[in-house]
């Protein structure tokens, strides 16, 4: 889901409660004040909403079946965000913690790499830069190797 509003993290957690779930993992991506050594003043996120929402839904479904989840949800915010604001939330519920952890990382990695959402960082010195946020090449230890190939 894509939203221009503050993400209601507690309400999302409550809505997903399930007696079969022995583990619930919450990841929240938060706007921090420094990136690559530069002071950040704020961020702005843009998305191609129709396709982004469809792709997030498909990623949630893939995670549910791959990791045998009870529930999975990802909500990404768009618009202007300040330091400390929550930009993205992923919640995964499973019978055991291992699946919940692994599925949560699977979802956020894939959302960051594939879904048409873009970050614009505004620096404290008045300049800005469009983000290059996907770090899956670094996790693969090979700059030519992506976790998820689309190109």
């Amino acid at each position, binding site marked *: 889901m894509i939203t221009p509003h503050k993400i209601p993290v507690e309400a999302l957690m409550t809505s997903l409660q399930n007696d079969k779930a022995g583990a619930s993992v919450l990841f929240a991506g938060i706007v921090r004040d420094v990136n690559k050594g530069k002071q950040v003043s704020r961020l702005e996120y843009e998305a191609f909403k129709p*396709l982004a929402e469809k792709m997030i839904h498909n990623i949630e479904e893939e995670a549910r079946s791959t990791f045998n989840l009870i529930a999975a949800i990802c909500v990404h915010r768009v618009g202007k965000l300040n330091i400390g604001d929550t930009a993205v939330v992923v919640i995964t519920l499973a019978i055991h913690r291992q699946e919940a952890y692994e599925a949560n990382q699977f979802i956020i990695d894939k959302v960051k790499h594939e879904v048409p959402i873009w970050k614009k960082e505004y620096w404290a010195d008045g300049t800005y830069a469009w983000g290059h946020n996907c770090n899956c090449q670094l996790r693969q230890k090979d700059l030519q190797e992506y976790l998820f190939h689309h190109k």
Partner: protein
Amino acid sequence: MEIEITIHVFAVLKESFEEKFEMKIPTETSCTSLLELLGKQQPRAKGLLGKCRIASEEAILDDDCTFNHNDTIYIIPPSSGG
């Protein structure tokens, strides 16, 4: 023979192109060759366009996909959400 399509761009591409514009292209132009045509229009975006994908509202299109007259398409730069 040419067709006309409507193109939307996002994020950093808006610094090189209008957010929405019409373009006449040869029939049978593929996604890959459209990105090359756009790179010729705006050489400073050529490197970035090589990493872009083309989409409809429903899906990312295959590289060899071609277009119909009056199609609306979306140029998708590399993602940076999260």
